[in-house]
């Protein structure tokens, strides 16, 4: 017979052991192993630098396909991506961009928008974080962050125009668009405030980062386009900033144009602001894939096969070799169907293009086994400046390809060349334009001819608006300035290859549809579906 005491003790033991386990284990806090939270970050100097780096990270998209660079370039008369049979149709978005029939649901616009606002967001966040910290190291970075943010807003006011102005990271209200003038004013005031606080040295510590000269370059381009952005021209201010950079900045024109774009171009004296890509550490510069032919993989021994996309519009290419447009020493160039060399101007800037017959490293011709029946020379791979049509069966070998940045033998799909954002030649030509518009054509002519001399071509006897426009085109090919120039010179609505005349409202890109859908305070730009205007 069991005693009460032994029953009780048995129950107690069992009960206690059960409850012991129960109440010790209701802890549901999450423990992180491979990530960090804000609590355990921002403790050391290296962490600050790493955090600052995030502000530049947003620039990494500038060298690949389907973002800001793509919409600027395909909508211009420089570059085009034709539909090659089953390749590159992609729902018609590329043709739409080229022909100025783009609509808000084109995915590239949303990519560009999120790319730019991602950058703005990061700058706002870091400015706020560093202001909270209040240490001198933190303050030193704030000027730099405001400059990066000004660059983003300069690109925003240039592409979408009427965008939300978001500067306060703690403000969680959903923003509405503001008018273009307001964004312009903001960029101007920001740059005015911080330009003197930025470093002026050009060395390893400032390479790839915002300096006073880079900020001046932004302001110069802002003033140059002021009439387009606000209706009020600011040629004098543009000229002043450009002169400041040319006279006081540590820059010179490189003797060889292509040195600015070489694989190891960090030594260039002409580049003012770059994004330092690297095929291992900072990938994303995909131009060899974007523009070269599938068989070019053998020509350069690439580890990946190119996609055969971007090609140059023939009229634009001809502006280099046609002696009537570009006087200079005559010699062998590739033109038209490129079966045999033609005679044309030997502009040093023809290094901008990969054109004509392509050869493998062992000297044999590269071949395109998938060529069309109507390809000018069949299997041998020849990039022909002449192209047949944009749709439906563009020649696979059609169009001069982008060769601006040097391609590496044995390279990967990412280049190590640093991407040039601002360059001295652009500032020189901007000064020329500002002076030309201000009435001083002879001074402008001298500057333009300096640039032409570096390119190895003859000086112009006199300067006209069209000549200035064309020279900018030749010098700044694929550097994301052509669309701006077309708009400023009033030529954006003109017809060109496979494009008819287009309406004025296309000068502003449409606010992307996903942004309109997720933010009911955003209104569409004039002329686009859903704008109400």
């Amino acid at each position, binding site marked *: 017979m069991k005693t009460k005491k032994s029953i009780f003790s048995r129950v107690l033991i069992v009960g206690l052991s059960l409850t012991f386990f129960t109440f010790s284990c209701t802890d549901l806090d999450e423990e992180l192993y*491979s*990530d*960090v*939270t804000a609590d355990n970050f921002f403790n050391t100097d*290296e962490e600050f630098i790493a955090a600052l*780096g995030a502000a530049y990270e947003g620039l990494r998209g500038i060298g690949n396909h389907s973002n800001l660079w793509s919409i600027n370039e395909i909508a211009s008369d420089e570059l085009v991506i034709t539909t090659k*049979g089953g390749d590159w149709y992609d*729902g018609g978005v590329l043709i739409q961009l080229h022909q100025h029939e783009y609509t808000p649901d084109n995915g590239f616009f949303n990519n560009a928008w999120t790319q730019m*606002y991602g950058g703005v967001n990061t700058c706002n966040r870091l400015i706020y974080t560093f202001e909270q910290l209040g240490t001198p190291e933190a303050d030193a970075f704030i000027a730099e962050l405001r400059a990066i943010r000004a660059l983003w807003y300069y690109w925003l006011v240039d592409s979408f125009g009427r965008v939300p102005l978001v500067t306060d990271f703690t403000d969680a209200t959903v923003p509405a668009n503001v008018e273009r003038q307001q964004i312009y004013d903001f960029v101007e005031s920001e740059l005015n405030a911080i330009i003197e606080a930025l470093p002026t040295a050009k060395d390893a510590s400032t390479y790839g980062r915002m300096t006073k000269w880079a900020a001046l370059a932004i302001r110069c381009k802002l003033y140059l386009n002021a009439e387009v952005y606000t209706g009020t021209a600011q040629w004098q201010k543009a000229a002043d900033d450009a002169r400041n950079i040319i006279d006081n900045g540590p820059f010179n024109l490189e003797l060889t144009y292509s040195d600015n774009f070489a694989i190891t171009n960090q030594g260039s004296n002409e580049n003012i602001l770059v994004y330092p890509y690297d095929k291992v550490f900072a990938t994303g510069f995909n131009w060899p894939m974007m523009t070269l032919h599938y068989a070019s993989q053998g020509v350069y021994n690439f580890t990946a096969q190119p996609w055969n996309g971007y090609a140059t519009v023939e009229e634009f290419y001809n502006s280099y070799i046609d002696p009537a447009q570009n006087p200079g020493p005559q010699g062998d160039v590739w033109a038209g169907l490129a079966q045999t060399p033609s005679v044309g101007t030997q502009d040093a800037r023809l290094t901008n293009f990969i054109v004509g017959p392509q050869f493998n490293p062992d000297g044999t011709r590269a071949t395109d086994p998938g060529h069309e029946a109507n390809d000018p020379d069949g299997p041998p791979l020849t990039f022909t400046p002449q192209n047949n049509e944009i749709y*439906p069966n563009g020649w696979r070998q059609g169009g001069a390809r982008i060769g601006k940045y040097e391609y590496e033998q044995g390279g990967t799909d990412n280049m190590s060349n640093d991407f040039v954002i601002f360059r001295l030649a652009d500032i020189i030509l901007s000064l020329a334009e500002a002076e030309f518009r201000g009435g001083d054509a002879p001074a402008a002519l001298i500057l333009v001819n300096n640039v032409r001399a570096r390119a190895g071509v003859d000086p112009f006897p006199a300067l006209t608006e069209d000549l200035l426009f064309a020279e900018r085109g030749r010098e700044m090919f694929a550097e994301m300035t052509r669309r701006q120039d077309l708009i400023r010179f009033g030529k954006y609505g003109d017809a060109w290859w496979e494009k008819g005349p287009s309406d004025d409202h296309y000068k502003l890109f449409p606010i992307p549809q996903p942004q309109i859908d997720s933010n009911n305070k955003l209104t569409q730009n004039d002329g686009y579906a859903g704008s109400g205007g």
Partner: protein
Amino acid sequence: MSRFYLYLSRCTTVLLMMTASVAWSQSTVSGRVTSADDGSGLPGVNVLEKGTQNGTVTNADGSYSLTVGGDATLVFSFVGFLTTEVAVGAQSTVDVALQSDVTALTEVVVVGYGTQEKKEITSAVSSVKETDFNRGTVNDPVQLLQGKVAGLNITRPGGDPNGGFAIRLRGVSTFGANTEPLIVIDGVIGGSLDTVDPNDIASVDILKDASAAAIYGSRGGSGVVLITTKSGKAGRVSVEYNGSVAAESIANTIDVMSAEEYRQVPGARDLGSSTDWLDQVTRTGRAMVHNLSVGGGTPTTTYRVSFNYRGEEGVGKASGFDQLNARLNLSQKALNDRATFTFGLSTTSKDAELGFDEAFNYAIIANPTMPIYDNTTTSPTAGANYGGYAERDIFDFYNPLSIVEQTVNDKKETRFLVSLRAEYDFSDIVEGLTASAFYSQQRENDLAGAFARKTSKLGGGNGLGRAARGTEDRFNHLFETTLNYNKGIGTADLNLLGGYSYQYFFTEGFGMEGGNFLTDAFTYNNMEAALDFQNGLGEVYSFAHSNTLVAFFGRANLNFAGNYFVSLSARYEGSSRFGENNKWGIFPAVSAGVTLSNLVSIPAVNSLKLRASYGITGNQPSDSYISLQRFGQTGSFFFNGIYGPSYGPISNPNPDLSWETKAEFDVGVDFSMLDNRLTGTIDYYTRNTKDLLVGVNVPVPPNLFRETIVNIGEIENQGLEFAFTYAAINKANFTWETGINWTNYLSNKIVSLTSGELSFGEGGVIYRSGMGSPGQNDTELVRVKEGDEFGQLWGPVKEGVNDDGTPKFADLNGDGTFCDCDDDRTVIGNGMPKFQFGFNNSFTLGNWDLNVFLRGTFGHDLLNSYRGFYENNEVTTVGNYNIVNTEYYDPAITKAVVNSSHVEDAWFIRLDNASLGYSFPMTGGAVNKFRLYFAAQNLFTITDYTGIDPEVRYADRGDSPTNPNDPGDGLSPGIERRSTYFTTRIFTFGVNLGF
């Protein structure tokens, strides 16, 4: 004193004599056990001498023979029959006719944390017993149930031996979080099916509605599958061996042109040969299974040990696996039979060759005139640089045989599961009270290695070779305690359950990938030799994450006089994955039933039970840490001459993140009629899921990151399920049993995709799932729209063909032109099924047995990707690839644009498996069972679908899935991708032996 001693010695003598007479009065009893219903002999009946451990089992004829002591009583017991005791007395022959159990509803069903008699169940629970499992070569436990349970759809498109099955219970009621049911193996919640060999499974119970699954709380939202493994039986030792060999071949693939047909097409690129590419990369597959199990025990100790070996050479060359699984189940009573300790240990070791599925994709679309080998450097198919395999310089094509022979893709899997349960019966202190404690630990380890030779065009690092090596370790342990109390109150029975559960998961892993090897000899076994690591081009990674689940649960079951049943349960559960403000949730359920046949006499009906239930279950997210604001490396930053990391936010915080909630109402009828020969179940369910866990795009200012995981949206499902079994003929020499189950999926609707200002998709609509390349990247195939049925396929409607060969599309918005935008596209199909059935017939004739199982699904469409890309005469299709040549091929079409003509009605009826066996009559001796059988799987499929497999696709895995266990995009059903393996047919020959 002496008288006492005399008395004592007399007693002792008598005692001794009695014992002697007892000891030496052992006799042999024999006889035959038959069924009282029809007089047939019953094999396998346990015959036990009561009070001892002396027993035997009847042979195939029903005969037995046992040596017993004097005054013995024999106990005859067998499942489905009433246990009978017979005193031997002086007889030497004892024949017994066993009565079958009056109602089939006394069988026991496993429910959460316990068992319940079937007649008392008030929720929708389906049981599948071993005799009902699918037959043939079945390597994955889930496949045993395919088509057997109403409302449960198990699919594995194609026949990839290393591929997983998709399981959907009662349609799709979630898409962000876990869509698959919770698996519980012998009480281990979330146990891995890799630890269970199909031969070791005794029964599977599926908790279909919320009231049954609510006791599992935040993981029960998609249903619960309870697996019970075989355990030992007291009595004599039983040894079983099952072995089989099988041959597997291709059953169906898509029709493409032969070399002669291709040469006729204008623009064809004739490369000079005739090659059957699919033949080159496939072979007749072979499989072998050996299973040996030993079990037995005493009334206080039972055990079962089994060894299972499975090996398969897949139909695809360079694919297959080798696997050994060992399991021990041991149960021991102690402490005066009050305590029971149950110990389970299972370990699996698998060596798999996965191959690369791309080989089959390229084999199907390869130009049939292309030679296999080419050792030149200049011809259009020059392959001297590629190891002599012909290769072409076109977009997206690699020699399939080169992929098979020049690459390696291996995986070794180790699984380990151990569990211990201790139960104690407190009935001596408090009548009806038992307590239990349970602990289990599971560890899964994957070790993967992949390699491509320098000469391999796919993945070979462009002449440098490339290798990858990685491992992942998934660990979890579970601790549970429960208290159970049974009490009779008058005519009512009360059962109370209360418990606590704690489960902790930890996953970690690391890996590396790099190339540039001097030699191919190392494959992936010398990663140090990859020069990429020295050049900074190699990739190295490691990771870890964990999560915790804690719960308190309780249940009360009331049984009034065996006529009225009520069940109430609740689980209060917290998961570490939810946001700070919402870590805990409560999941209640209530159900009730009444056995009408006990109250009202209904002619021809033996039993009829009505039941209704309502319950709320939940679903937790599939990733940890998503409610937190996290920073991670977002790139590199060039600072002072070197590249360092740059850090930024990689998620937005959401402290309100909580579980998905599913409320379900179910009403059903269970009945049996015609002397219990016809039994059936009918269920109607309606379920409503709210607060689905999905990532929504948020405006880039002011949020930090472009996406936040939130609770948003609502889905509704309704359906009707039927299941009937009928023992049609039950004669001495011939039996026929038939069973059918079918499900009507009445509706599966997206009620809402918005919550306040947030919306998944823009304006209540999402378009997703691009067609892919070449050339159709931006074309979206699926629309998910608020207020519409789930599973819509989206695209333009083809009206005809234009003169230039482009398809002519309908102008749907009537504005005069076709705009190639959403205004001129519409719903062109729906990937979700409306109706599915499974139909089983079992026959026995003498010693022969035949089982045939048909199943089918109706009402779903499939988008045939192969046709959408390659069934046309477009310049690139003809010049680069082969042309798909189904009955729909139209040579006038010269542009590849996916449209309504590529969406096909994919109804099908399939003979899933059939088996024919012969059991040799055994007349005593060591062997008591010897059966040979022949089984065929996927014998034929009746369908109009021209693609590879008309099976439903619940989730889209894209064109080249790198991870076969990737669940895919649950929002995009209905697309047959180019990565679909062909379907296979398997013939198995096997033997079952019992000792």
